[in-house]
């Protein structure tokens, strides 16, 4: 939840528009899951300092 993420202040956080228990999206959607991971990995190259909270943009 965004409010919790803002409070916790982890270095890099990706906000995804999926329900609880489905952080990577839909079951069996390998392309979509990779897309989420790529978005998360791209934050490793984002300039700091943190906390960074990016919104995931679905395909």
């Amino acid at each position, binding site marked *: 939840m965004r409010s919790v993420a803002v409070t916790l202040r982890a*270095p890099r956080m990706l906000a995804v528009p999926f*329900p*609880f228990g489905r952080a*990577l999206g839909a079951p069996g959607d390998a392309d979509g899951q*990779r897309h989420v*991971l*790529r978005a998360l*990995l791209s934050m*490793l190259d984002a300039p700091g300092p*943190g906390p960074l909270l990016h919104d995931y943009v679905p395909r």
Partner: protein
Amino acid sequence: MASWDELPLKYRISIRAYRWRTIADTPWATLRVPLGRARVALVTSAGLYRPGVDADFGTREGEVISARYLPSDTPVTALAIGQTSDAFDRADLLKDKNLALPLDRLYELAADGTIGEVAPRAVSFNGSMVAPGRFLKETAPGIVDALLADEVDAALFVPV
């Protein structure tokens, strides 16, 4: 992100009143190597474990705060869900454990060169705990030590 509206009323009330810990000074580190050469680990709070190999995570009343270290070549289909929270629907996670521990996806990203390689172990713990202070003091340092021992460049945490 998941929203308050998805939660049963009892959790909406308790979570709004919960005194969340916060990181006063957010640590910051950058990759030491290009992402295409980085060793990447996964960490999940879904409480995934290998039945018959790892201890489970107990019950909500007798919670287990220790972590499980899963060899990354473990088939995700062989993992059981030890998360003790009843605040989320497990149906989709039961269909595809990659939703909490995307090992298959990470191997695919290693194969296409997006990352260098998958770390030899993934870390799993039960994120539904009433004693996070004990977890931070007794369990988290061991997780850090394991990731350092595995010479991990980046760790992706999937909260459940």
